[in-house]
């Protein structure tokens, strides 16, 4: 009903034949590792009631492995389900997780933050030609027009370091970046224009906290922003608190964010939150050569330093 997709002038279909192979491989592997006791649960995707939709699924019975799927609607970053935030969900024992390349960066980040141990999870990596973006119609096939913005600039379509990598990558039509252009547009603005832009965006925020709740890195059991002694960020959905909340959120994720863009995807108010994360990622890369990758890193850019770090901004 709401069609808000960023319609591009040309919309080329994307070869989605690999998704069926991936689905097959996930089902087989899930059944095997559940049956032989390698893992106690598999976190994957299954089809939703509405045609063309999917949802996260936690499968513990090998008989149910046949319900797992992989499709362009498998947007969620399932790494969320391995974090402390969802500790009531995950059963004890080793857990398998279906992970796209972008999701695997989050897994690597969580390993670097001592939240999960590599040996305690089983990664079913999937090759991914991309998932659907905001506003894509459930029934329409994946095209260059309805592809998620993050997928247009993906560098991890075939993840490395998984226990199993399912599927082979089809050749993709040429994809032009959208978010990068949006970044460039914002960066070219004057500070006052940027302030106006963000003010407008954040004024829509209702503090449903979906951005926080789906973020694999927002696993704090007591969010700073829920605290009231002291209250660092006003909890009411007003422009003042909203601005503070989004600044604090971006700052807390700086150097940690794995770039899955889930925050932006789930925002019911369609605030382009990933631009903030992306800005911080750019800063981290430019200043400290840090990039979120597929390998866990012992220290992040903001938990380490070098003697000769840039200090041109300091008098």
């Amino acid at each position, binding site marked *: *009903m*709401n*069609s*808000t997709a960023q319609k591009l002038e040309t919309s080329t279909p994307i070869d989605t034949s690999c998704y069926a192979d991936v689905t097959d491989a996930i089902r087989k592997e899930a059944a095997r590792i559940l049956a032989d006791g390698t893992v106690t649960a598999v976190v994957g995707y299954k089809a*939703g*009631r*509405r*045609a063309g*939709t*999917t*949802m*996260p*699924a*936690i499968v513990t019975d090998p008989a149910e492995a046949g319900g797992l799927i992989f499709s362009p609607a498998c947007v*969620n970053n399932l790494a*969320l*389900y391995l974090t402390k*935030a*969802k500790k*009531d*969900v995950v059963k004890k024992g080793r857990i398998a997780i279906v992970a796209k390349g972008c999701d695997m960066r989050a897994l690597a980040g969580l390993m670097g933050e001592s939240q999960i141990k590599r040996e305690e999870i089983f990664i079913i990596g999937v090759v991914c030609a991309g998932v659907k973006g905001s*506003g894509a119609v*459930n029934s329409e096939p994946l095209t260059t027009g309805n592809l998620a913005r993050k997928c247009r600039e993906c560098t991890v379509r075939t993840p490395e370091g998984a226990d199993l990598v399912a599927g082979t990558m089809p050749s993709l039509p040429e994809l032009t970046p959208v978010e990068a252009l949006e970044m460039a547009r914002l960066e070219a603005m004057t500070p006052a224009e940027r302030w106006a832009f963000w003010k407008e*965006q954040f004024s*829509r925020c*209702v*503090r*449903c*906290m*979906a951005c*926080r*709740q*789906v973020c694999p890195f927002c696993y704090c059991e007591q969010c700073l922003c*829920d605290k009231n002694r002291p*209250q660092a960020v*006003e*909890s*009411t*959905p*007003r422009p003042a*608190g909203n601005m503070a909340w989004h600044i604090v959120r971006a700052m807390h994720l700086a150097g940690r964010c794995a770039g899955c863009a*889930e925050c932006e*995807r*789930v925002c*019911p*108010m*369609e605030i382009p939150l990933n631009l903030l994360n992306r800005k911080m990622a750019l800063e981290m890369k430019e200043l400290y050569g840090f990039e979120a990758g597929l390998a866990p890193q012992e220290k992040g850019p903001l938990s380490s330093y070098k003697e000769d770090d840039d200090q041109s901004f300091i008098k």
Partner: protein
Amino acid sequence: MSKMITEQNLRLLIDTLVKEGARVVGPRQAGAMTLYEPLTKGDDLVLDQLPRRSAKEAFFPVCETILSFERKEGKTTVQDVDVCTVPETVLIGARPCDAAAPGILDAVFSWDYKDEFFLERRRRTTIIGLACTKADDACFCTAVGLSPAEMKGADLFLTPLEGGGYACEAPTEKGERLMARHPQLFDDAGNAKPLPLAEPAVEKLDLQKIKAWLDGNFESPLWYGIADRCAGCGACAFLCPACHCFDINDEGTADKGERRKHWDACGFGKFTNHASGHNPRDIQNKRYRNRIMHKFKYYDDKFGQTLCTGCGRCIRHCPVGIDIYAVIEEINKMGARDQGPGTGKD
């Protein structure tokens, strides 16, 4: 005698009302979506899509100040917000699922405590409803007893006509008054046929059966696992036309500040967190159970109504694909099994 209003006059109506000093709230473009927002002119009105947030905020805003305090020279003064400043409002373009909700909420806001903020806005607001000619796969109003042509809650109801314009009906006096105020904008209805309405592709559910099942199944295994994947955000509640939980916070400094009422959601982990640290709804499944129970049982128990109008917003925008229709449909089936002859659990 039935009336109609042309597209042009509808927009002129808005202009006129605004000029008269009324607050006109209706779907308006906000970025890529529409939201119910105050309109400044008729052309602001965008009717081709269901606004992202429901119309409840015309009565129950995201956040509102209820009192302010200030300390000067060692003395603190408290100033209540005067509800009489609420302007006369016309809510225009509310779909049946949005138009029906405020009426459902009247009960809870005027029960043991009269919420004058809500009630005063209700008193001063005229709702112009609009029949639906489009539905998507998340819509399920028919499942919960409403329909694309349902006038419940509307003071004036518009039905789009073939060839443009809207048929107008005034189910309430308020609606009639509005029409009477600007008779020149309304024409007599000709024989233009209404556009075909959009029935969502769902089956009608037996809400009483669902309630009956809920009555006896607080500890059903259904609840365990149903919302494992729930991320615990408030998107469903905040988009819902009928969810009405709120929190109250004091903000400001020791010298000056305000007490504010703002939306809250039962999906939040801290929603039922006690000062002791104990949380009776300690896991997401229990929180989700409460959502279903509240909508289909508790509210019915107390006020005889169902707290869901089938707008489908929570389905469309759930980050993890939780589908309330699928849940109640399953409960409906179980309810039917439990009660059906010979299929009971004996």
